[in-house]
């Protein structure tokens, strides 16, 4: 019997669950392992879930919406003209551009065209994504308050600009528990850009569990010999030796348990057993050598390089297949304050083909229907150029007032565009979606009422969406 066996409910856990106010129907489901996944706070979803898992393709550094999904043909004739002050309004600037004497408009140097039956406008930088225009739902009206990377990314991940709160994946682990007793519930994968570009650092906090217990932390998989920290036995210790050592350990721990009756001892025995299972399951999972050549062709040339975004996309599919609930990729390098045309081209090269391949792959395997995919960064970029503007070069500063993301898969409308920005992609003119709204909607698709997934800390019931969040029902299929 292992700790994730729903039948393994001792009286203490039972009382614990009961005191959380779980109704009798949920208690009944405790006794039926097929009705729910074990280990979570919410033993039954608040309502029928459409998604079982989330793959969050985080584009860290903030991709420009003007070169990707927010087509502004009107800017063509406005090259190097000053952005009207009325458009900017009271928006603060970062220190990068607040000292500039001019805010000259920089139209995208890249062309847009319409794709799919939906006729979605997508940039030439994303040809593979464009082929899937009828699968995705683009939101052009995302907005945030934060203007610097760290606070903005922290807000995107935890619903708050200052560190200390649990990340989205931790909330989901905490709420829903695991679907695979051999793997972590929440996995984070980080990749660096292939090109020479400014790769903003990340922070372990992004997948941290904040004030939730450490067991809900995201587990970072790395492209080293230890895909999970300390996974590999030391030299000279084979799996068979490890098994024998663990049997000894278990016998010793059992003796302590018999004397002390402390349930934490049983818990420790169980955690060592799970560690042993992970020693088998994680290398099997991370080993891409068994993937057919066609897979690498589909995911593109970078996919053969361990630790690349493309290789991580293959891993994401493998994690999804094995029941990992929350899979978060981070691709660094989207912070194009200067040399944006070349920088963003290189970034799009990194992510376009593998992202599209992942979507297609999941679809072919029947996984897209219960996997929610989210693609996007922490804020947008300014229509005006940061630094020198020339016919073929410019930079763009941080812009919190609008940015574009897309979602696909479980429960999301296909071939749909939601929200609208003004002619300068500076202000939202229709259907604004705040990060809290995005998170509320994603939780909704998982079957969770975002106002009811709470944890008491320092006397307050906290939640991912703080005191905000509206479900964007218009994007739900």
């Amino acid at each position, binding site marked *: 019997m292992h700790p994730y066996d729903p039948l393994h409910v001792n009286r203490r856990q039972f009382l614990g669950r009961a005191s959380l106010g779980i109704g009798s129907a949920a208690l009944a489901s405790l006794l039926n392992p097929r009705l729910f996944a074990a280990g979570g706070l919410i033993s039954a979803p608040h309502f029928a879930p459409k998604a079982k898992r989330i793959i969050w393709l985080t584009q860290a550094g903030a991709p420009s919406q003007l070169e990707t999904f927010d087509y502004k043909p009107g800017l063509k004739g406005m090259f190097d003209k000053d952005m009207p002050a009325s458009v900017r309004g009271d928006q603060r600037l970062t220190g990068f551009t607040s000292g500039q004497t001019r805010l000259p408009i920089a139209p995208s140097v890249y062309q847009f065209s319409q794709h799919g039956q939906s006729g979605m406008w997508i940039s030439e930088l994303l040809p593979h994504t464009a082929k899937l225009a009828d699968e995705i739902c683009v939101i052009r009206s995302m907005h945030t308050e934060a203007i610097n990377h760290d606070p903005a990314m922290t807000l995107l991940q935890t619903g708050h600009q200052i560190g200390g709160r649990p990340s989205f994946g931790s909330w989901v682990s905490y709420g829903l528990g695991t679907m695979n007793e051999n793997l972590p519930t929440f996995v984070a994968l980080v990749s660096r850009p292939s090109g020479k570009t400014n790769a903003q650092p990340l922070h372990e*906090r992004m997948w941290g569990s904040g004030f939730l217990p*450490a067991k809900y932390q995201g587990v970072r998989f790395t492209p080293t010999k230890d895909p999970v920290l300390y996974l590999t036995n030391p030299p000279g210790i084979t799996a068979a030796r490890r098994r024998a050592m663990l049997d000894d350990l278990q016998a010793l721990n059992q*003796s302590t348990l018999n004397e002390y009756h402390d349930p*934490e001892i049983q*818990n*420790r025995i169980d955690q060592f057993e799970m*560690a042993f299972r992970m020693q088998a399951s994680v290398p099997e999972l991370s080993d891409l050598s068994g993937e057919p050549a066609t897979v690498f062709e589909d995911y593109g040339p970078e996919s053969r390089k361990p630790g690349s975004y493309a290789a991580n996309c293959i891993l994401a599919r493998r994690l999804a297949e094995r029941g990992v609930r929350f899979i978060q990729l981070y691709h660094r390098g989207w912070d194009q304050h200067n040399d944006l045309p070349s920088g963003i081209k290189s970034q799009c090269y990194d992510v376009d083909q593998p992202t599209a391949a992942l979507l297609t792959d999941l679809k072919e395997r029947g996984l897209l229907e219960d996997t929610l995919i989210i693609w996007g960064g922490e804020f947008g970029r300014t229509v005006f150029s940061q630094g020198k503007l020339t016919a073929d070069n410019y930079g763009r500063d941080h812009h919190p007032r609008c940015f574009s993301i897309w979602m696909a898969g479980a429960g999301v409308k296909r071939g749909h565009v939601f929200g609208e920005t003004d002619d300068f992609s500076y202000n939202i003119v229709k259907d604004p979606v705040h990060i809290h709204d995005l998170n509320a909607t994603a939780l909704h698709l998982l079957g969770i009422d975002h106002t009811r997934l709470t944890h008491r800390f320092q*006397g307050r019931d906290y939640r991912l969406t703080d005191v905000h969040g509206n479900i964007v029902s218009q994007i739900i299929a």
Partner: protein
Amino acid sequence: MGFTPKQIPGSSALGGISLIASLVVAMASPALWAESVSYNRDIRPILSDNCFSCHGFDPKKREAGLRLDTREGATASNKGVIAIVPGDVSKSALWERINSTDEDEVMPPPKAHKTISSEQREKLRKWIEQGAPYEKHWSFESPVAAALPPVKQTAWPRNPVDEFILAHLEEKKLRPAPEAGKETLIRRVTLDLTGLPPSLQEVDAFLADDSATAYEKVVDRLLASPHYGERMAVDWLDAARYADTNGYQVDRDREVWRWRDWVVSAFNRNLSFDQFTIEQLAGDLLPNPTLEQRIATGFNRNSMFNEEGAVDPEEFLAEYAADRAETTAAVWLAQTFNCCRCHDHKYDPFTARDFYSLKAFFNNVAERGAGNHGAPIRTNAPPQLKLPAPEAEAKLQELQKLLAAAESTKAADQIKTLKKQVQEAELSIPTTLVMEEKKDVRPTFILMRGAFNSPGEKVEPTTPAVLPAMAADLPRNRLGLAKWLVDPQNPLTARVAVNRYWQQVFGYGLVKTSEDFGAQGEMPSHPELLDWLAKDFVGHGWDVKRLLKMLVTSATYRQHSRIPPTLLEMDPENRLLARGPRNRLLGEFIRDQALAVSGLLVDKSGGPSVKPYHPPGLYEQVSTEGPYVTGKGEDLYRRSLYTYWKRSVPHPAMLTFGSPFRESCSLQRSRSNTPLQALNLMNDTTYVEASRFLAERMSKAATDAPGRLAFGFRTVLARPAKPAELTILEKAYHRAFTDFKNDPAATKALLGVGSKPADKQLDASELAALTTVASTILCMDETVTKP
């Protein structure tokens, strides 16, 4: 240390207590605490949780003009409707509304997702019938030193702590557990007071000492050990958000380890808690401050510092000062002041004005809001203090002379080289971050909704209105604030401090929410004991060692920690203390213990932080700086509190065991139990190498396998292995020995882990086999747990 434990006439005094049955009568009800209704204990938590966020202290959020946090508000007529009519439930609108089945009428409203249970309703009914008496929130009332409660088992208590604990147990018809064995006791108290295990010599000496004061002598020895300060510092570093980097995105190095050493030294010197407070908050403002007193102010420079390009300095100046106010309120007052940064508190009587008035004390630091990218790495942001470093200073002077000479001869190449050397020499003089007041006064404003660019009314440095006012003769600066915090009239500081020391020793505080003594925090499990301890603490000069001695010499602490099944159900968290404390060690001490028992520990105190073993590749993926460069030699084997702490990527072994990131104040760690912890203990080079060194010690301690195994087991756990345990170890050893004998390559590989070579004099197969057994012992639950 003036405290003397109550003497008992030898161990036979314990004979009257049943050594087996802790639980005499099974409880019919799972309720831990008493039955009669009290506002503070029973009613306020219900009202606070369910009602106050809309009918409480914050006037901006108050619905229908009704407030329930005061008796005046609750009993006032509101258009003819009265929420609470004292003594008459049937006329009380509150009673009607909470029992309503109409969705539009019922309170709390369905959208709040709150439910008042039937048990809670019953309490409310009783309370209204009793006349609905309100009480000031318990923690804002001054502690009252209660008389020691009467107890029946008069032979059990060793000191006043036990009288309170026992009285409560007797009320619950429970008996204390028998005293733990001597080996358990010495391991428990040594880990608690030094974060290290006892040596075999120490265990043997204690076992050989039959005197009535044997245990007390051990405690005195531990309190005098330099390792005491290292253990005590760890919790304080979490509270003070100490780290070796600036945090935020850029997260470059800073230099403030000298403050960390000050903390270790302050605990070792037993600096009284009031002075500890004053020097850290305002050492620089004392008359003629010493170097040490100025270093102490690094406490409030441990706040993060944003070096990200193009941040608005004003935004982050506001952030740093707010962080200091929040940290001060959390550490000394256990109040969640962060709530009043944007609005008046929803549950506690603190206003946004209170928050910004407290912030004003910290808003006048001669500091920068944003970083300076041009400065070399490890250049501290001002204000900082150059530390005396005679050798480095002499070298610098010498180089400066050489440079002057070279400049006079215009030797260009030489000048270039020397300039570089001078710069390096300048950087080699250690500095530390300190607090320092600006000459002119930076005004402080209430920030509307907390936004740095929406200033409202100007405020002056003032302490929260609901608490006793600052004495008139105190200066309105950090020094005055610090003295106000440790004024015996302050109802919170002493309680909050003793509660944290209690938490450190017993696992949970008497107030479980040690970071929140407000309305949403938990009530103390033993309010009279908490008050008694607080009064006693202040009355004896805020003497921390004396307090700890009282806790660890109590009969309560000395109980056996086995859990009778019935007690597990009734009191899973051991709040009643009908048994001894048994908790997993903090990550730092799990590692320190392994280094100690293997003999690898380098017993050196203080200095710049060091970089022990670390998994490769972790920094490169997420940070812009180069890889983590593992230290050499001694650096690999120092105590864990000296490990380099990078905020964006703290040492993964520490995070795995539940350490905070040290970005903001943290007063409790989670004791999660995860597979990643198991992997760390099994496979981290730290533990593999420590296992090999423990194996070498085992090998040299005896000539036969049973002797070696028994030695290893006892070295780690202080107690001899039971016959059944020894059988397991022997079987394991013989299996491994045969196995390695037949696999020289694996033997060599295993013995090659770590930076120190294996002892060539020892038989390799034996050593490899012993290494695996030692590793198993280091992974045991009992090993990573305070027994």
